[in-house]
């Protein structure tokens, strides 16, 4: 096989080799609006996560220390409910804050999931484990980007999770109590899938709602990443439900063993829907 897909790239304008290059569109967009004081963190996931969590430590301390998700049921995130409400700031600010609140919830959820042995330990499925860690860091970067954009417009940063979805998370967390590894993994995947789809649908809708082209570009750079999370989780969920966790693998030869339906389960719609999108002001800072 002598195919060189990079031949196509000769038609293109920019190198795609560097992480910095890849991040440039988003960074450039934000630069138009904001004095980005976290730009260094954008290139380092660990630093970025630390930056992100610095804003959230007060909210998620108990969740982070919970030995099991079951212990967190109803306790950790519900407290944030009272502090988010409709805001009086501009529409773009509220939309950005709502997006940040969704990202905050996602970060907290993945962080807690990684405390579970069947997700976060060395005995967990390697693909699922890496996905959870990478995705958590990506959501932290998304939250920071949304908050930077909101702050640049004169708004407050949103450090709390989306109040409307907190009960959903808490209910799911509670349901994991006493679950087996297989059941627990499915539960976590199902919860993550729901959150990721809400995020993706919300941002698809937000690209239309926000007024600034810079903010449109920001949402556009993130919505597809969330949709990819959805695709992966749909595939993982299908393989788990089918009793084939061994096929959740990046090992050579895996594709040959996958069932036919696994090739399409990750993208069920030709057009991404928005009927599960969060209302624009749902997570705005009061």
């Amino acid at each position: 096989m002598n195919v060189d897909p990079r031949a196509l790239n000769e038609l293109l304008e920019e190198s795609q080799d560097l992480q910095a290059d890849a991040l440039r569109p988003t960074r450039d967009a934000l630069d138009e609006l904001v004095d980005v004081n976290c730009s260094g963190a954008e290139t380092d996931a660990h630093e970025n996560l630390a930056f992100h969590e610095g804003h959230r430590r007060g909210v998620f301390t108990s969740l982070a220390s919970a030995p099991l998700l079951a212990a967190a049921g109803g306790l950790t995130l519900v407290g944030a409910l009272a502090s988010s409400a409709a805001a009086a700031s501009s529409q773009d600010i509220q939309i950005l804050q709502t997006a940040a609140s969704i990202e905050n919830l996602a970060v907290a959820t993945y962080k807690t999931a990684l405390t579970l042995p069947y997700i976060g330990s060395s005995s967990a499925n390697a693909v699922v484990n890496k996905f959870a860690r990478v995705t958590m860091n990506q959501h932290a970067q998304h939250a920071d980007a949304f908050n930077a954009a909101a702050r640049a417009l004169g708004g407050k940063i949103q450090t709390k999770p989306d109040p409307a979805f907190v009960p959903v998370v808490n209910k799911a967390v509670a349901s994991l109590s006493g679950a087996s590894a297989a059941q627990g993994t499915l539960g976590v995947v199902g919860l993550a899938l729901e959150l990721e789809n809400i995020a993706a649908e919300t941002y698809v809708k937000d690209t239309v709602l926000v007024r600034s082209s810079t903010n449109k570009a920001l949402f556009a750079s993130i919505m597809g990443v969330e949709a990819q999370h959805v695709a992966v989780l749909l595939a993982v969920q299908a393989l788990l439900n089918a009793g084939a966790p061994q096929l959740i693998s990046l090992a050579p030869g895996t594709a040959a063993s996958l069932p036919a339906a696994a090739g399409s389960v990750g993208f069920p719609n030709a057009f991404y829907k928005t009927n599960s999108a969060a209302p624009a002001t749902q997570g705005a800072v009061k």
Partner: protein
Amino acid sequence: MNKNKNKNTGFNGTESELVAMTRDLDELHHDVGMPAMWEGVSSMIDNLRDAPAVRSTNRRTFLMGVGGAVAGSAALLSVGLNPLHAGAATIQKPSPKSVLRSAAFPPAGLKGDLAVAAVAASLENLAVYAYSAGLSAATAGKLGTVPPAVATFATTALAQHTQHAQAWNAVLAANGKAKVTEVNPTLAPTVNADFAKVTNVTGLANLALTLETIAAETYQAETAMLSSAAAIGLSSSIQPVEMQHIAILYYVLGEYPGAQTTGGATLAFSPINQAV
């Protein structure tokens, strides 16, 4: 699961469950997704008709100017297509007329959002072509053993790209413009040359990955450039689907299933450096 140890045991007896799941999703797609899509297209058409003026885009003059640059190499695709999979567009075979049309691509008279619609349709046509040709080659046994999941992927992705092309062409038709039936003339020669080198599934998947990436990044870039809300909505409803195609292609290739650099570093933000 250790990436270095291939302990795959195949799929035993639960295919029916996955098939049923896929069937349910497909029904949901037709019950919900298709009406929503056409509602969105109708909305876009209405909005474009009402738009007082089309905002000119200064982002690259590709929409208006690429034709000249590629005119000399705009001979379009000559690979025979499986008629079962040539749904969205009748791919043009080389002819003086098609070359002429390509040289003027997007067609004169299309500006702003409508020009973007034409380019989008041409990219979707190119994807339809590539998947159709790939499936035809697979059927002919030219790609060796084709895993069932890969065949399903290609068939489903082809169908979705067909719908994307139909959506953009519906917009053009509703505005009194001719539908775009040709593949993107900028990329076609290279795709054609690369496809000629494909001898197995991995090669086809890599080619598809490149095309999907270009499509996704183009839609992403245009989201901030389109003028009508309906056009933005349509573009935004497609970009994530292309990104999902990319994720599954990476998985099939044994790579991390998400946005990444060519070096494999994961990305939290999708880039646009491959947008056309």
